[in-house]
């Protein structure tokens, strides 16, 4: 039975897709929202230290949960390749469920800074990097950042941050009260002449949007919020889209390809439904919001006479510039307990080192880390402690409650050879070529990371740390939960995939709306920017339609 034609089919229900679906449905368009994963409820929080989206050694609880059906291929620097599965790091998993990454994220809600949209103009070209300005500015996105902050819900206090871009309204919710790490780190930052403030978070600090406030448990990043206080698309805009009566959400729907008509316009998508039937959904407009790895894979797997190398890929830019964040920072041992079991843990940040660092192109935000659950803590042991045995155990016993971690995401220099391809051999359970990831970080990214880790170390020392050690990233590909860049936004169709309104060049009813379009990924967690772009793209899509 043929499926009824809709006005828009949205593929992926994460930060980008959830918002587009709601915006279009609210404007009266009939929307089919297709999601590969399931709808995970707050009751499935599980609080399982070994099986969640941050520590997935026993499985990625927010999907893909069927390991064998969803492989990827990872190519190493020496050319060797391996098949990787979702629960292992090299997979660069984000999530696969209603809400996407927003169902389990740590929920930092950063606006990028004005300079982040104009890195090339600010700093000049970087050799070996495809560094470029965005075709849009901070000012273009400002109203849409605000819309995201108010519709999804953000708490925090960014007033003391002198480096932020101009904003018309304050955040809708106050920050959570400080925990002990905050109380130690904030005065230390002030003594150093830095400008600490309360991290903006997509988390209810007070009742908001019909949901209650955070109860401050320790299982936050990587988990569903047990009391639904974390704000994602799954508990805000997606329910609103469904309530409009214009949006149908279909879970466990695996899109194989985007289908074009003879004239080169998108006709719709072919997908496999929850009963493993092949379906075709036709639509006036197709919106791809699968995350930087899967969106690129879907475009590359959608081949036709007009696009023999994948839709939108006639200039070989789809899948290029895959980036995430080079996380860097330092750990310190304090002479007193800093662990107070008050989640989410992260609370205080500085943006003093995002820009204006001598000899460096950009930088990144620094903040204290979310609560380190016991097994996670082992990944942050100092280099002078053996990896096992009596000393290792002694260290954990003595220092777990006294160790503080300051870290942050370095804005990466995009590189052309860091990329996603459709693998020529390996297919998933449904017979679709899987994502093949290759490439490395740019050397300058590592230089920035080194600089940032030293700043983190200074902050910890000022806070009273008696001993510190830095943690800097290696040069392997970064993507993971902050994956971005694979369908770059730009004005020139020869060096980008979508235009400034997220429309694929050459296919005027096909859009990519997720972090794939990011030209650069900011020195910040990217989700609020993905949300702002989703509102921006929806606004222009609706404007073009009317």
């Amino acid at each position, binding site marked *: 039975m043929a499926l009824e034609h809709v006005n828009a089919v949205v593929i992926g229900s994460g930060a980008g897709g959830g918002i587009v679906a709601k915006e279009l449905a609210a404007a009266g368009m009939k929307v089919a929202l297709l999601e590969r994963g399931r709808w995970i409820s707050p009751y499935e929080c*599980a609080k399982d230290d070994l099986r969640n989206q941050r520590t997935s050694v026993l499985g990625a609880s927010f999907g893909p949960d069927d390991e064998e059906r969803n492989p990827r291929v990872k190519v190493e620097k020496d050319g060797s390749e391996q098949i990787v599965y979702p629960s292992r790091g090299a997979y660069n998993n984000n999530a696969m469920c209603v809400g996407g990454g927003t169902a389990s994220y740590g929920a930092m809600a950063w606006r990028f800074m004005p300079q982040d949209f104009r890195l090339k103009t600010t700093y000049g070209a970087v050799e070996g990097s495809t560094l470029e300005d965005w075709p849009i500015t901070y000012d273009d996105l400002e109203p849409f950042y605000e819309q995201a902050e108010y519709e999804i819900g953000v708490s925090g206090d960014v007033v003391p941050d002198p480096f932020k871009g101009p904003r018309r309204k304050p955040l809708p919710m106050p920050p959570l009260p400080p925990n002990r790490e905050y109380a130690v780190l904030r005065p230390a930052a002030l003594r150093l002449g830095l400008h600490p403030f309360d991290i903006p978070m997509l988390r209810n600090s007070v009742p908001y949007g019909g949901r209650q406030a955070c109860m401050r*448990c320790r299982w936050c990043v990587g988990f569903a919020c047990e009391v639904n206080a974390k704000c994602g698309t799954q508990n805000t805009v997606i329910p609103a889209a469904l309530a409009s009566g214009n949006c149908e959400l279909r879970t466990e729907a695996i899109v194989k390809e985007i289908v074009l008509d003879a004239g080169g316009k998108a006709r719709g998508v072919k997908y496999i439904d929850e009963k493993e039937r092949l379906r075709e959904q036709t639509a006036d407009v197709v919106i791809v919001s699968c995350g930087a790895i899967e969106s690129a894979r879907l475009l590359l797997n959608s081949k036709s006479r007009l696009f023999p190398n994948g839709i939108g890929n006639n200039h070989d830019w789809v899948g290029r510039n895959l980036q995430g964040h080079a996380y860097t920072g330092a750990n310190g041992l304090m002479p007193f307990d800093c662990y107070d079991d008050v989640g989410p843990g992260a609370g205080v940040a500085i943006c003093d080192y995002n820009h204006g660092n001598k000899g460096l192109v950009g930088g990144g935000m620094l903040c204290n880390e979310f609560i380190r659950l016991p097994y996670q803590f082992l990944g942050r042991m100092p280099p002078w402690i053996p990896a*096992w045995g009596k000393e290792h*155990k002694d260290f954990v016993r003595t220092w777990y409650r006294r160790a503080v971690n300051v870290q942050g995401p370095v804005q990466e220099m995009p590189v052309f050879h860091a990329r996603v391809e459709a693998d020529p051999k390996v297919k998933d359970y449904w017979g679709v070529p899987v994502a093949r990831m290759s490439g490395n970080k740019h050397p300058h990214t590592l230089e920035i990371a080194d600089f940032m880790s030293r700043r983190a170390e200074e902050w910890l020392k000022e806070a009273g740390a008696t001993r510190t050690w830095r943690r800097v990233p290696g040069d392997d590909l970064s993507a993971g939960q902050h994956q971005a860049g694979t369908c770059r936004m730009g004005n020139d169709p020869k060096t980008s995939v979508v235009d400034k309104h997220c429309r694929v060049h050459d296919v005027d009813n096909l859009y990519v709306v997720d972090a794939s379009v990011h030209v650069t990924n900011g020195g910040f967690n990217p989700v609020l920017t993905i949300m702002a772009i989703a509102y921006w793209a929806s606004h222009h899509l609706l404007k073009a339609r009317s």
Partner: protein
Amino acid sequence: MKISRNPDRRRFLRTAAGVAAIPAASCTRAGRRWRFLTDEQADTIGAICDQIIPPDQDPGAVSAGVVHFIDRQLKGHYAYLQDAYIKGVVEIEQAAQEKFGKRFSALASEQQLDLLREREKTAFFRMIADHAMQGFYGDPRHGGNRDFASWKMMGIPNPPVRGRQQHDLTKS
């Protein structure tokens, strides 16, 4: 079967379905201590893990159930590592016999450490060390961290206090 503190419905159903599908196998297993390991393998693995996380004033790996954790995962998420475990155990037992003429678990602590230090960089040792840490420091629902041994050791409140706010701390 230990009752998990916070059962995840889907995993419960999966386990239930698995049990239903292999009634014969479950019968033949009645009375056995391990799901996958033999007693000898479990003995070796326990001795290795007790060097990785030795008992002291707090429980070590074995008394915290780390071998149960590994055994359970070898029939679960780590089923793909069964061969690696069997081979690793065989190799270290051979070395124990050649060098000291005894089973690994019967060796003096220093002799065990000798053999493990020689193997510190091997894939097998790294794997078992990581799994021992998961079993010891991870959630008890997976068979390890018995009686919250590691969390007690680290001073982590258990059960957690919910809804706590730090109203006494104000911005400086």
